[in-house]
């Protein structure tokens, strides 16, 4: 079998890919900015249909972004900032269902789907397997 042979083109192309990946991924932003970017993606714009803050151009979204920045600089943490917005706009201001109460189902069903998928797979293969 020739598959075991390692050749120069292999090595070159690996180095080539790694060069790109490394060049682009070694920078990380400062932690304060990181929290801001995270919140911006996890809080919805209340007037735009189905857009998070980072996607929205509306004035209210811009204002909310300013509030988030201000709160971060005042030392509020992620949870406090989120609660601040939940108090004003309700639960739907957060871009994902809260992980408690009825809404846990939102996360349980995907797990259930995965388990069912796995069982279906095994049953399918076993049932399809010839007896001999």
């Amino acid at each position: 079998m020739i598959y075991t042979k390692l050749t120069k083109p292999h090595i070159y192309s690996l180095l080539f890919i790694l060069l790109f990946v490394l060049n682009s991924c070694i920078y990380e932003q400062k932690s304060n900015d990181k929290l801001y970017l995270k919140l911006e993606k996890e809080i919805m714009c209340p007037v735009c249909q189905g857009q998070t803050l980072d996607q929205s151009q509306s004035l209210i979204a811009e204002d909310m972004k300013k509030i988030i920045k201000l709160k971060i600089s005042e030392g509020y943490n992620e949870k406090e900032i989120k609660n601040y917005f939940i108090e004003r706009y309700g639960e739907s201001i957060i871009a994902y269902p809260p992980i408690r109460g009825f809404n846990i189902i939102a996360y349980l069903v995907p797990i259930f789907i995965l388990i069912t998928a796995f069982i279906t797979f095994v049953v399918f293969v076993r049932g399809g397997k010839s007896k001999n």
Partner: protein
Amino acid sequence: MNNFGFYILIIGLTLSIYSVLTFIYGEKSKDNKVIKSATRSFYLTGLMIFISSISLIINFLRNDFSNIYVFNHSSIDMNPFLTFVAFYAGNEGSLLFILLVHIIASIAMFKFVSKKNKTKLNYPLATINAMSSFYFFVLIFFANPFEAINTLPIDGKGINPLLRHPGMYIHPPLLMSGLSLISIPFVLSHGSIYDTTNNPEWKKYLRTWALISWAVLGAGLLIGAWWAYTILGWGGYWGWDPIENVGLMPWLVLTAFIHSIIVEERRGMFRLWNIILISIAYILALLGIFINRGGPVVSVHSFAASTLGFLFLSYLIAMSLFALMTIMINYRRLKNDQNKINSYLSREVSFLLNNILLVATSLVVLWGVIFPVISILFTGTEISVSAPYFNKTAGPLLLTVVLLMGIGPVLSWNKTSYKVILKKISIPLIFSMISIVILLLYNIKNFFPLISIGSIIFVFFIVVTEWFNGTKLRMKNNSNPFKAFITMIVSNRGRNGGYIVHIAILSLALGIIGTKFYDQRIDVSINTSESVSFRDYRIHFKEIQNSSINNNEITKATFEIYKEEKDKQKYLGDLIATHSYYPKHNQISVRSGIMSNPIEDLYIIPKDFINSKNMTVRIAINPLAWWIWVSGPIFIIGTVVALWPENSKEKN
């Protein structure tokens, strides 16, 4: 012109209903004359749809604002080239467009099927005409694109500014076509059911048409992402918006189908499973059209929405029952496969795993799309299900599918020995491990990107090694490596086209990982002739130009970009970011300035113009974004290779 178009629609409805009835009657009575008449009226239906589309276009070109649809979506100053976009900019026109694609594809499919197999197509053609009848019905009674007003307005409202982008020439029509095209493999699968001779040609038809609709839908999704990236001005390209999701779901299921239909072709297995898959894909596509036409979920795409939700929901339920019934009635015959699974280590099992994972992913996405409705029904509270949810649930599943792309190709049909697998995966696996170690050394510790990049490298080298060895084998009688590579690709188009598409998916995955985990952004307020430094870039704000075109205020900001190296600066070029305000629509549209290279995109989004000298901008660096857009052409090339008809001589 308005009445004319409307009457043509009514004739179309009559013809398509006639065609449904005669196809069914002709099949029952085996009367060739009746079938001939049915076929003729099927063609005539197509002609009617064509004529009514043309008359809507003529309405647009003549600026006939007595037509409400034209009034709402066009204006005198509109570039005539945008007529094509205006045609499907609203609810009525997009429905007509979907119907047009539906009938063109149906006729093309009918021509494509060989004469012998056409006799099995009577029921499927009845289905096709029933689908057309539904659209005619909606167009005539609920969404008439030819509705007229008595008073003649001087000028129309004009086209939505967000649609004035080259991406709009292709994204919506491709997406709508993709969704509409899925009905072709769906009805073909019914044709294959009615053919009791187990004729292999059906599998060829099914594969071809599934590939076509899959490619069109995929290209539509990708171009939509590109449009969002260049014009929506948030630096992203995929927002997990309901409309995007309902396009993605059938695409995922179709991806499963185009794999498992190969298993049916090669091994005579998975027949029932394939019919179920294509039915699910079709139902999901209908769901897509339903949610597009005013379904119960909020979306950023709602500019073309309507109150037709109820009609489409009934249609969706009726078609689901129809698909289910067809499967149940023929269940016994469909479940008998020619072959059995012999080993876990076989290509068919890896395809099965791919299928199940893809369907599971699309169900998870579906769950996310409908959950807000469920939450309101059960608890009365409104909640949002957006990007963070989908990234957490569907993201890992999609990564697993990527990893499977590396395992599938090393397995042979029926059975594979451990030894062969080990030999084939050794180099890619070692490479993937090495790269993970190198990334760790460079302090990249995020679990998800690490695993993803490792998988991408693994899959890439699996394909490369396969091609490398194939080329080498062919070089024995031909010394030119390029020629040998091409002959190798051409010798098995289905498989190698598939590999090319896999490379496109890897490129896409690389771009997603880069932009998702390593993007950097700052918001700054900046004056003209000032500079701002961002990482190793220096951005010099050169000037603002204001202009007014047709009452629309357009502001252009020009930036000079420098890269700071040790002690000198390298001038990279100018970036222009445009901000336009359309008073007629009270809408803002921005065009970001993007400087792109394979390593990263520098991306400038104009936000506010405080005065003629100062503005706020968001500057973003999107690593590896270039790879997302490169995947598009690779994807198309791969699909074309896979679809290219095999020469019977070349087939060994």
